[in-house]
């Protein structure tokens, strides 16, 4: 008995000692604390790459298209925003805003803490800082582009600071962006200095390309656009060697060219099977592995591709045949859009087969009375097939995994854009000439596959603004820049008012000549050139004002 009693007490005390006195200070075993994190060089790089990962994403990249006259999507805010029914509570406004400010937060944390690292070489740290400042500037650019005046966040703010931060006038945001880029350029390498393993890192060229875009978008800085573009075009020894890739399609679909070419200035980087995007699953026709039609090209986009002779389809003598609309067109149409009768080539990939795509109702040879509509045919209200009668081809990845899981890069800045920026700036300054044309639009058309001298020769003198804008649309379709363009040209109120159309398959020739009415769109010029500041933030940050009309 006594022994038992003693045994009991001893066992109690020992169990307490073993398990009971666990410390209340518990450090996580799968994470770093703030004391040690920044001193480890590999962690600094990881923090940098976190900034990179937040630059932009495939969703932002492709969704932009649906807000423009290039495409129509029947899903969620992609429908609501172009319909004109968006409000300050529209989720996309908050989501995109949040995306950009998350990246800014990550950059500011990086800039605030990298000083704790004492083991990396000074010039390496300078470069990492320059890359991060580029990213932070790019995010602010996107913000000011969509929302106008926005809070300029240049340090790692606390929750309390975020509740009182005011909007900074757009001009000030833009000048901050430009000064940041100017400051970053000396510390960045040129494209030519990058070892292959760093292919995709931010370069002097990328900073200049962003500068060019920022300046172009301001509308009143065309001379500066010219200056910056000329650096990229003429001072390639200092800023990196860029040129057009010989093949347009390969830039978007050839797994090798997409990653390594002389034209890309900066791309969103993906890695096959590991870091991937899958948007094309909802872009491709159902018969070649598509899931549903998530977003599809409009008739308006298709119509803007010129004829092989360089004329617009409505120009006199264009040779356009409304009953055979897809022949003799800018080769980039076929490189971008899938239309009725399209010869789909899977290029040996696991998605799709080589086949003809039948979109016109009743055209599919497999149609039977029991199954009257082939999978890709236009049927009003059907989810699985395109509501416009068009599908996308650009960015088709023959090397994608099943269900279009792709590791192709998405281009943020291409040399082609610099040429278009340059042409537009020179033209708006009244300085366009045959030499500039040949180096820009002419070069792009040649590369696209035009051979007709009428298409390649300088069409001036005279106003060639429409030609340059059309060229920009054709070259850059599905690269997320169209909304920016129609906003800065102030043409949104024209092209986003009225119906977005699809192909001429509605069957009712009395309405819009038989073109499908995909969506009735409304654009309020007094409001819609800027997105609403998210209503949530307006209510939480007392110094945050709203854009007009929301």
């Amino acid at each position: 008995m006594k022994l038992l009693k003693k045994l009991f007490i001893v066992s109690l005390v020992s169990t307490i000692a073993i398990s009971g006195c666990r410390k209340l200070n518990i450090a996580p075993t799968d994470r770093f604390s703030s004391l040690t994190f920044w001193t480890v060089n590999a962690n600094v790089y990881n923090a940098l790459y976190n900034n990179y990962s937040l630059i932009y994403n495939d969703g932002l990249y492709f969704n932009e298209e649906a807000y423009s006259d290039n495409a129509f999507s029947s899903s969620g805010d992609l429908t609501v925003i172009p319909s004109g029914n968006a409000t300050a509570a529209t989720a996309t406004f908050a989501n995109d805003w949040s995306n950009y400010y998350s990246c800014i937060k990550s950059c500011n944390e990086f800039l605030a803490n990298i000083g704790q690292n004492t083991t990396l070489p000074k010039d390496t740290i300078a470069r990492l800082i320059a890359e991060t400042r580029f990213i932070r500037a790019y995010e602010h650019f996107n913000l000011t582009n969509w929302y106008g005046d926005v809070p300029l966040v240049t340090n790692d703010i606390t929750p309390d600071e975020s509740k009182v931060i005011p909007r900074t006038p757009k001009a000030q945001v833009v000048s901050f962006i430009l000064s940041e880029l100017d400051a970053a350029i000396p510390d960045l390498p040129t494209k030519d200095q990058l070892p292959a393993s760093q292919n995709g890192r931010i370069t002097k060229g990328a900073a200049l390309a962003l500068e060019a875009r920022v300046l172009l978008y301001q509308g009143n800085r065309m001379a500066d656009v010219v200056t910056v573009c000329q650096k990229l075009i003429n001072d390639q020894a200092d800023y990196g060697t860029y040129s057009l890739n010989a093949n347009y399609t390969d830039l978007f679909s050839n797994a090798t060219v997409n990653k390594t070419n002389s034209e890309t200035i900066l791309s969103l980087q993906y890695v096959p099977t590991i870091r991937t995007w899958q948007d094309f699953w909802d872009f491709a026709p159902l018969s070649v592995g598509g899931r549903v039609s998530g977003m599809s090209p409009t008739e308006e986009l298709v119509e803007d591709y010129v004829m092989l002779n360089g004329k617009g389809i409505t120009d006199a003598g264009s040779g356009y045949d409304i009953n055979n609309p897809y022949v003799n067109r800018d080769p980039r149409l076929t490189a971008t859009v899938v239309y009725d009768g399209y010869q789909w080539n899977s290029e040996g990939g696991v998605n799709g087969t080589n086949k003809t795509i039948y979109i016109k109702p009743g055209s599919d040879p497999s149609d039977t009375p029991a199954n009257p509509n082939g999978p890709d045919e236009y049927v009003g209200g059907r989810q699985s097939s395109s509501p416009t009668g068009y599908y996308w081809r650009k960015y088709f990845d023959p090397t994608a995994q099943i269900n279009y899981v792709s590791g192709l890069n998405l281009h943020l800045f291409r040399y082609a854009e610099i040429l278009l920026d340059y042409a537009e700036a020179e033209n708006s300054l009244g300085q366009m000439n045959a030499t500039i044309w040949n180096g820009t639009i002419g070069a792009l058309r040649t590369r696209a596959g035009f051979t007709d001298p009428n298409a390649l020769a300088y069409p001036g003198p005279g106003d060639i603004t429409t030609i340059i804008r059309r060229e920009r649309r054709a070259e850059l379709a599905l690269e997320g820049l169209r909304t920016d363009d129609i906003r800065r040209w102030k043409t949104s109120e024209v092209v986003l008012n009225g119906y977005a159309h699809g192909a001429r398959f509605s069957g009712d020739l009395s309405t819009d000549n038989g073109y499908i009415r995909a969506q009735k769109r409304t654009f309020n010029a007094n409001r819609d050139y800027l997105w609403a500041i998210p209503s949530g933030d307006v209510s939480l940050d007392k110094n945050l004002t709203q854009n007009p009309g929301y």
Partner: protein
Amino acid sequence: MYKNFTDFICSKQPCCIRKPLLVMKLTLILLTATFLQVSAATYAQKVTLKLKKATIREVFEKIQAQTSYDFLYNAEDLKLAKPVTLNLENTTLKEALDVCFNNQPLIYVIENTTILITKKPVVPIEKAVKKTIRGKVTDTSGMPLPGVTVREGNTQNAVTTDKDGNYNISVADGAVLQFSFVGFALQEIPVGNDLMINVRLKEINTDLNEVVVVGYGTQNRANINGAISTVGAKDIGDKPVLNAFQALQGESPNLIIQQNTLDPGSNVVVNIRGVGTTGNNDPLLVIDGIVSQSSSSLNTINPNDIASVTILKDAGSAAIYGSRAANGVILVTTKSGKLNQKPTVTYNGSYGLQVPDVLVKKVSASDNAYYKNEALVNSGLPPAYTPEQIQQIASEGTGTWDINHLVYNAPQQSQNISVTGGGETNSYFVSAGYQDQMSNFIGNGGSGANFGYQKYNLRLNQTSIIGKFKFNAILNYTKSRNKTNSVGDNNIIADANRVPANYNWQDAQGDYLTNPVASQYNEYGVLEKGGFNQADNDEIFGNLNGTLTIIKGLTLTGVFGGTLDNNGSFYDRKEVDYIPEGVYGNDFAVIDGNAKSELFNTQIYANYAKDIKDHHFNVTLGVSSESYSERGFQLSKSMTDPLLGTSTTGTIIDPVNSTNSIAVSANSLLSAYGRANYDYKHRYFLDFVFRVDGSSEFAPGKRTGFFPSVNAGWLITDESFMQQFRNVLSSLKLKASYGVLGNQNVTDYQYQTTYFNYASAYGFNNVPVGGAGTYQSNPNLTWERAATFNLGADFSLFNDKLTGSFNYFNKITSDILQAPSDIPLIYGAGPADANVAKVKDQGWEAEVTYTLRSKKVTQSFSANIANDKNTLLQLTGNATQEIDNEDVFQLIRKVGQPITEYYGYETNGFYQNQADINNSPKPAGAVVGVGDVKFKDLNGDGVINAQDKTELGNPFPQYTFGFTYRIAYAGFDLTVFIQGVGKRDEFLRGELVEPYQANYGATLYEHQTDFWTPENTDARFPRLAISGSASNTNNWQNGSNLFEFNAAYARLKNVNLGYSLPKSLTKKIGIEKARISLIGQNLATITSLKFVDPETSEFGNNVALNSTSTSGRGYLLPIFYGMGLDLTF
């Protein structure tokens, strides 16, 4: 009289023949007896003895002088005798002798007229003199009670009464007889000289003497001053459910149990007294004294192993669990053996079929085509179908593409066996259980068993008493496996529902078909061949505890226990090809994962009980330490072997979702606690309870919390002025408590900024690079505090036939731990949790039981009902509201209102004519027609815009109730259990609500046909219009109470009809008790919500604004029909 006399002698005989000397003497006596003719009457001769410190021999001489008796003795023996002082007047001889021999080392035996004196034998207890006691046991009305256990004291010696209530038991002299019978108060009668003991047992209509587990000890129910409910084994074990929470639903007022999905093996949402915080509302779960990490730990317990569940609702009772008790505490006690109980083997099993309750019915395909035309025309578009085509569709009839063809009547069974018993110093309970609930979905995913949930339990509870030390060991092992489909219930239900009725899952060749609506998946094929998702759980629970009685009333208890959990998951997606287009699972994804956790809890506490006259004290003081840690890993691959799922050429490892450290967390808690109970005359009660906790969740300086409570009670019916009412009001106790409790439920480590590295953040040149992220911190984090005031009454009426209790509470929770909701997105990161909000939760609960017994029939009615209302007092800082988009409608948190409410426009009927349209305010830009929804212009500014939105109700269940009726008659017994919610609003969205929703839904359902037409102007829904049309935009894209449904319901949850075979029959084959039963579950429901089960909730436990809205795509309610068998050996 004579009979008694001889009996008396005979019963003494065995002890008289121990010694040879005695045998000789006895022979002499017997000889003498034959010579002397005496009557029995002489025994009654009276004596008068007045002696002071006389020798015993003097006493003998006096007696001899007054009676005809002689004494026979050994003179040597008389030397041992003590002096005697007597003062007896006219006393019977026997009484005189008894007094005289009291405390003497001698005994006497009367043989005829001789009184034989011998030395008192030194007899061990087991050799004690035995008596045979007979008697009859009846109830208070005099009806015999068969089956009553009659036990000798604390021994294993027990018999039961026969059919006439008679018993016959042989017991030691001086023993105490215990009479026990279910439903009757235990009665103890000391054995005196009477050999016939007739007993009237009193029925128990009150549970005031029930011993209730209250945390670190037990209390008599009568002494409890807090709001405590208990649920017994009978209310749990009778139900055909695998999850103990499901068995608890409706059994206790304000124990609110809801489910997101009824899929076998899924978790439930548990609230005590509703939702009282915007943070975590999970109650604390304590199993056999060991504090669990999460309330879902109850899932693994076999409901049949539960002996009782105590629910601590108020601060007064829950304060002993301090920092985590703010949401109440659920104490589960599992079954154990009893000392001195003969071994009993119990088997109970049930088997039955679950019939899935398919509520959604599509209209016929031809009707659908007709309606679709109407929708198109209403939308200004040409009709899609010609009359000929509609004829054609009608002639095709109905296909198989619906839910009915994806489900079957799945079996469910439960098999349990237990052995229990106990001796003088030890007791045991051993049980094994197997429970199997098959999924109602067809198929097995292509291999292995069909979808379903299985659970295996093994439990051992052993107690040993070693002197003053009691040692108890509880061990439980649970193995469970839950196999579900690989695509998700929601997808299956949605795809089955949204396709018009004329399509088929398969063609004549058995190929899986797709169609223009469901072009992606054929769920029939996915269920049959598309792989599966399997969760395997192994859990070991152990509790070793010992109690040492140091001195009378003072005990010291040590407890060491914990849980080891191993959770495995295996997801395997297989390819299914469709005709004419489409394929599922051709990425052959396989995800293997495992997580282990360990929880340890050590406690030492002392309890001291002391009564000083009418003052009763009971004090408990203790310390405890808890620690928890978990760690897991996961491996995710695709393009695996199509059959085996193993790695093969071309297999791709997904580096983002493959990680060797997931769910890594740890926390610990060091505590001291105490409870002091005091009462005076069991009439005035006062308790003080406290706990001090130190938690690893908070920074030093913020981590220690003190949580006190004070309780008072007054048994008013004990007062003399109440005696006049006692014949009606048997007892009434008033109770009040006030206390402050805590809640520390936050993600670990949040007070420190931490950084994590992760794989494949980005890539350069086709090579992935890692990234690093930051967890934001808040060094100021500390406890959430809930101050609760409780006022209650326990009462019983009409001689305890009607018993009940009522409690009112008011709880204010402040410093609520949640992510602050006033941080703009500009901050750029999810802010760390902080102590931000404040919520009031006010309500009441009542329960009442009425027991009615007649000679043949016993009936009882139990009802409970409860209500609570929460109010948001503070959101975060000065923010007064937060709105979150919930698909087409919104959710709002607004100060002064219930913490989560639906938000949007209020509808105002439909536009009935053009004048109505012209005169009514409309949303900006809306183009509407007759039959479209009209909204209320609440601010009267002539336009419908965000300023007209308002709160449209809340999802909190109110007036939750349960009702149990039991009746027993002649071997038959019946239990009927009804449970429900008196008031609840639910917003539903999706294809089941909005016709042809987003072009995703392609058919109409019968419940949607009540739409506006010129002939049906008082419809539930607006006129039909297709997605994207102006009408659809107005009607369905402006969140309004068009989406609101009344989810109140009453459900016949459980019916159990049993018949116990006559014991006379079963005894012959060695069975103590045999009962067969018919069991039904979810047999009928009264609700106005016809197409979605009203019991399933769209919300998790904190009713967060970002909860997903429900589209009514949940697993179907299983209606169970089965049989049960209970055997006791």
